[in-house]
């Protein structure tokens, strides 16, 4: 793992990618910091951070696109996967290298609350907690980008795919708001979700019997609940999907200044899940 981590980090800073990521993020944080905190005199740095979140949509794909797609394209994955290193080690080495690149501008941003303090009131607890969650949110996005990169051998597809998924995550609250809130609407929505899960199951297991069985059983359970007590279904789907909103947790840190432990746990578990899925994607390729 250490060897891969070192190589990846060196590769990021030997090429433009690492420098561009660090420079662009620093510049954007700097612009918002200057405008909000220095010129307009707003005392919360967390407000500035929430303004720069949108930049990740462009920068994260740049960082993650080559991570695994390039290895596969140039067949260097044969070296890594036939070495004594474990697959988990390979993926984590790459992931930690990307986190290190991310950490550089975030550490620079840690100076900003100190600068605010020098000029008057500062809110260290709120700001540094926000910086932590800012880092974690970006870490989730990087894990997502790495997963997409593992799925393809084309860097372009990896970048575009990551961009689209991040876009969907940023628009999540708005999209969920469009969903129907009536009980019958939720029922239809949940059925659609079930069908998707079964299709995924079919693709992963290759057994249509398992997928079909799950579909029939799931439909029966949903219908049973619906007939018994249809009122619980009202608003169910938007609520369920809304709880996956990534920005909610960040906003409760950055705008409400609340230390949102469930939100923090959501980020950490998403990171674990995405890294796990990346390992599984690579593992499955051996068996294709």
């Amino acid at each position, binding site marked *: 793992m250490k060897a891969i981590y070192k190589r990846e980090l060196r590769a990021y800073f030997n090429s433009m990618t690492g420098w561009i990521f660090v420079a662009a993020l620093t510049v954007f944080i700097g612009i918002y910091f200057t405008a909000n905190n220095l010129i307009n005199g707003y005392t919360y740095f967390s407000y500035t951070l929430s303004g720069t979140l949108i930049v990740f949509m462009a920068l994260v794909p740049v960082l993650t696109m080559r991570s695994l797609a390039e290895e596969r394209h140039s067949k260097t994955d044969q070296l890594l996967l*036939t070495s*004594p290193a474990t697959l988990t080690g390979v993926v984590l080495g790459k992931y930690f290298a990307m986190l290190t690149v991310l950490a550089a501008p975030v550490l620079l941003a840690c100076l900003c609350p100190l600068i605010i303090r020098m000029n008057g009131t500062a809110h260290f607890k709120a700001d540094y907690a926000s910086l932590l969650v800012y880092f974690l949110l970006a870490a989730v996005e990087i894990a997502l980008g790495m997963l997409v990169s593992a799925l393809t051998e084309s860097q372009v597809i990896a970048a575009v795919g990551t961009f689209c998924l991040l876009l969907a995550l940023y628009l999540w609250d708005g999209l969920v708001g469009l969903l129907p809130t009536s009980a019958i609407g939720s029922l239809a929505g949940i059925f659609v979700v079930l069908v998707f899960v079964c299709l995924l199951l079919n693709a992963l297991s290759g057994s249509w019997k398992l997928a079909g069985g799950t579909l029939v059983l799931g439909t029966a359970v949903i219908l049973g609940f619906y007939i018994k007590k249809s009122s619980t279904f009202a608003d169910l789907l938007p609520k369920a999907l809304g709880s996956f909103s990534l920005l909610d947790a960040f906003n409760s840190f950055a705008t409400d200044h609340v230390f949102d432990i469930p939100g923090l746990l959501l980020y950490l578990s998403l990171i674990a899940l995405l890294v796990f899925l990346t390992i599984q994607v690579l593992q499955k390729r051996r068996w294709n």
Partner: protein
Amino acid sequence: MVEVQNLVKRYGNRSAVDHLSFTVEDGQIFGFLGPNGAGKSTTMNIMTGYLAATEGTVLIDGHDVCEEPEAARRCIGYLPEQPPLYPDMTVLEYLQFCAELKQIPKAEQENQIGQAVSMTHLEDQTRRLIRNLSKGFRQRVGLAQAILGFPKVIILDEPTVGLDPRQVVEIRELIHSLAKEHTVILSSHILSEIQAVCDKVLIIRKGKFVTCDTPDALEGKLSANDRLELLAKGTREAAESVLKTVEGITSHTLTDVTPDTVRIKVGTDGDRREALFYAFAQARCPLLELRSRMASLEDVFLDLTDEDDGVAARAAALLTSGEETPAADGEKNVPSEKAADETSLPDPVPAGPTDEQAPDIAPEKEDTVE
């Protein structure tokens, strides 16, 4: 020791490797031979743990590749078909990375890298970016990577592709020197290369095991001294009358007649070379050439891997029956008739050491008896 048992790899309905079993002893140079697409690379990828087999097991030095992947891979150095190089690193950086990846103790790393570099003659290239290296040098960097750490088993997938003839000879010497302490498994679709370096050859065809033996034994099984070809100075009539006086000549065919020479294919029972020599000498028709038309490994290979299933099956049957089945009973009954006919055609290109670089099967070398 490497043991492969009943290996199967299926992609949908197509079998890339089909119930393949073989054993490689310690210290052997073991060659995989087969035409393109025969399943050589797939087998190597499974042996190194890059791909998983649909069925079957691979034991590297007693470690199952699937059950104990880390322990098994520690025993392997692998050069895939396309050397796995990072173009943004220098040769030295790359080898340092590989040494760390292979978990070579820090204290030994420098020494090991130095040895690998000198064995592959890369001393002058260590500071260069891999991006700027030529194909031959890249191949050697890949090779240096594979031998780094001096694992017990070194697996090389077409190690000499893209090298010039001099480099090919160097690589062969390197393989020979490695074989003193390591097991080397290499693949090729170039026959002469396998013949030159390997102790044992495995021929595979469409993913299936065809035969596994030493190159000499394979040749021996299909060769016989009872098919001769001669070139004599003299007229056609004179030559034919001389042949009639020699005992044990079962058949003869004229292949090439010029005003003062004749080329004749002769079928005999037993070794009649001396008798032929004296008979022609007495008749004052000097023999310019006399050679036994051996089935070389080339013929074996061509037949065994023929697209036509029938030809391949007949050749394989001949191999298993071994020497008990004399090959010649008149030209037309020879089972490897197709190959025999090919060898009798005049060689379009003279055989020589440089032909070993030919992209496909190099021309025939026949044993000449003066």
